[in-house]
């Protein structure tokens, strides 16, 4: 049986006195210790502590209590509570508890409806039923809820339309434009080749860009753009 001692400081493979330290997989296979001589163990431990100058051995006449030194007791003594501390603490606790209970109760408690409220509600429901039966328009309440969404959607549509128009104000619709116009409109307006009557220039520019993507564009400037639009 291996006497279990304090783990060695160096975590080496062997324990004190050269005994081999069990490997991890061996721990589970170690035999259980024999009947522990508890009292004997405690006796030995206490003797060792006393020899080191720790509190004296308890006397049986004292009921087995080991009085701690005064200085030890003083170190762990709790401070005196401030005046009113207890009262304040109790008061806070009670308020917190009351609030919690109120929240719980309020969740489930419903006020008793007045007779007038009941009558109004029933009448409104009857009117709504009649209106729905006659294919009435949506309730104004529903429209009021949808109005912000409609406004946002309308604003987005206007912005999108303006963006499309702003991008190319000269051609109403690229989709319906002739082939050469569609090719030309794909290029920046600053470049002269985007105004060529035939599309070969636009095609050759694209090929040049593909062959050397990091290079500056392979085109020349359009004078009208440089003088008029480029100054904006």
């Amino acid at each position, binding site marked *: 049986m291996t006497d279990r001692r304090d783990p060695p400081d160096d975590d080496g493979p062997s324990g004190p006195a050269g005994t081999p330290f069990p490997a991890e997989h061996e721990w589970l296979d170690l035999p259980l210790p024999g009947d522990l001589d508890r009292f004997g163990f405690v006796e030995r431990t206490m003797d060792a502590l006393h020899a080191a100058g720790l509190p004296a051995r308890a006397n049986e006449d004292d009921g087995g209590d080991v009085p701690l030194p005064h200085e030890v007791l003083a170190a762990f003594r709790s401070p005196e509570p401030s005046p009113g501390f207890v009262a304040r603490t109790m008061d806070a606790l009670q308020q917190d508890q009351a609030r919690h209970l109120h929240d719980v109760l309020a969740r489930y408690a419903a006020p008793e409806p007045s007779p007038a409220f009941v009558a109004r509600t029933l009448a409104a429901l009857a009117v709504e039923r009649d209106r729905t039966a006659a294919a009435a328009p949506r309730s104004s309440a529903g429209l009021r809820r949808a109005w912000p969404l409609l406004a946002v959607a309308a604003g987005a549509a206007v912005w999108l339309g303006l963006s499309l128009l702003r991008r190319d104000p*000269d*051609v109403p619709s690229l*989709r*319906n*434009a*002739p*082939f*050469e*116009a*569609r*090719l*030309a409109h*794909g290029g*920046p307006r*600053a*470049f*002269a*080749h985007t*105004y*060529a*009557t*035939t*599309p*070969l*220039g*636009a*095609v*050759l*520019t*694209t*090929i*040049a860009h*593909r*062959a*050397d993507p*990091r*290079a*500056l*564009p*392979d*085109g*020349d*400037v*359009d*004078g*009208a*753009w*440089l*003088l*008029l*639009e*480029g*100054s904006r």
Partner: protein
Amino acid sequence: MNGSACVVATLSCLGFGAAVADARAQAGAAADGTAAIRRLLSELDALFDRGDLDAYAARFAPDHAGALEMRRRQLARWVRPDHRMQRTSTIGGEPREVGGRTVLRVHHELRGTVPAGPDGGTRELVLREDTMLALRRRGDGRFVPTFEVEVAAQSPCLQGEVFRCPPCNYEIGGIDGWLCVPEQRERGQSLDAADFWLIGTDVVCSVAVRVDCRAPTAAQMATELATTFHELGGDTAASAPVAWTPKALAGDPPAGLDGVRLDVRLAGAGGASGGRAILHVVVFAGLQHILLARGSDAALQAHAAQLQQLIDSYRLILVDPTNARLAAQALQHHTGGSLDGVRYRNDAFGVSFDGPAGWRAEQRCGGAAFHVRWTSPNGSRVYLRGHRAPAGMTAWCPTTADRWVHQLCESAKIEAAADGADASWTEHATCGGRSRTIVCVPRDRSDTDAPQRVIRLLLRGDLLLVVDSATHGEADDRAVQAAVQTLRAK
């Protein structure tokens, strides 16, 4: 009796009375026609001056709805609620009959005021542009415009209705019914570009010449074009590319000639058919020739023979496949620049720049006057672009340069770093003009792979130089800084 009356009398005595009468009738008709055209131009000018582009477009009975829509878009740039231009249009060339229409060149002069700068105020603006106008004459003698497109002010490649560019090594055109309209350089995004319009129909064939440093095959380029149509224009369906040899070379195609044809069905408005695009791509000696014909299904079917005649008129001028200088010659002709190793020289604009040693240098084509890119073994890059002052301006100024660079950065999703170097304009020590340096960061701060980005600007009157560096690592950054010291702009 004046001189002309003497001539008429003499001719009449000699028995040419009928011819004289005919000539008089024709002259009278022509004078009536010219007067009617002038009235129409005045009406269109008045509508433009009022800013009523809807009425302007409604005046047309368009042969090509897409062209009219793009013309409207062009005009709309000058019509703003807070700004108005006044236009005066004059006949710029003798009207002629093409495809059942009267076609003429028109000069437009736009006058107005534009903001003068950040301190407020305005300045007078005079802008000149040319268009090609096609008219149909009604029974009552009035003209109805059917077609109006921008045309490049000058195009030395246009000879009659043939578009011939020896540096780009091709020619095409000269077929009845087709009107050749050279494009302005900044519109076409290529070295050279022109549109052939089958007047009276909605069929158009766009021609463009490019150099592509990736050196794709014709099939790869055609497929990429078709894919991009789909990406930009909605639902499209493309056929597989098939090998194609230009008719002029069918008997003895030169080695190295790579040609394909590819058909694309285009999406139209509201899900309807948008017609078809027929792509022909030829790659030869480093140059790409793109022929893009488009039209409605019905028009392409009805005029298939005329379209084929135009395609058959395309031919290469030089067929020597060993001519490695063709692409470089085309670049030098159209951009003014050439590369010698990493050294770039542009005599047309007086610009020179020695790129970092050991980097790969490539000239590129696009909308800018010239565009060169150097790439390091680590993937760092430095770009040199030159931008001419656009139409309506005689010179760049710091305000307009800032505006343009801000747009470029916005499109590239980068912005000036808050703690970057001082970004104000200063006098450039060696080149003259004014310069500015902007340290940029990606707008997406989570882009941890982003290179260190510095944009250096040099403003020299009519030219804005943009040196854009995107470097990985300090070594590449130092190499770019050293290279920037070599920039010269006379």
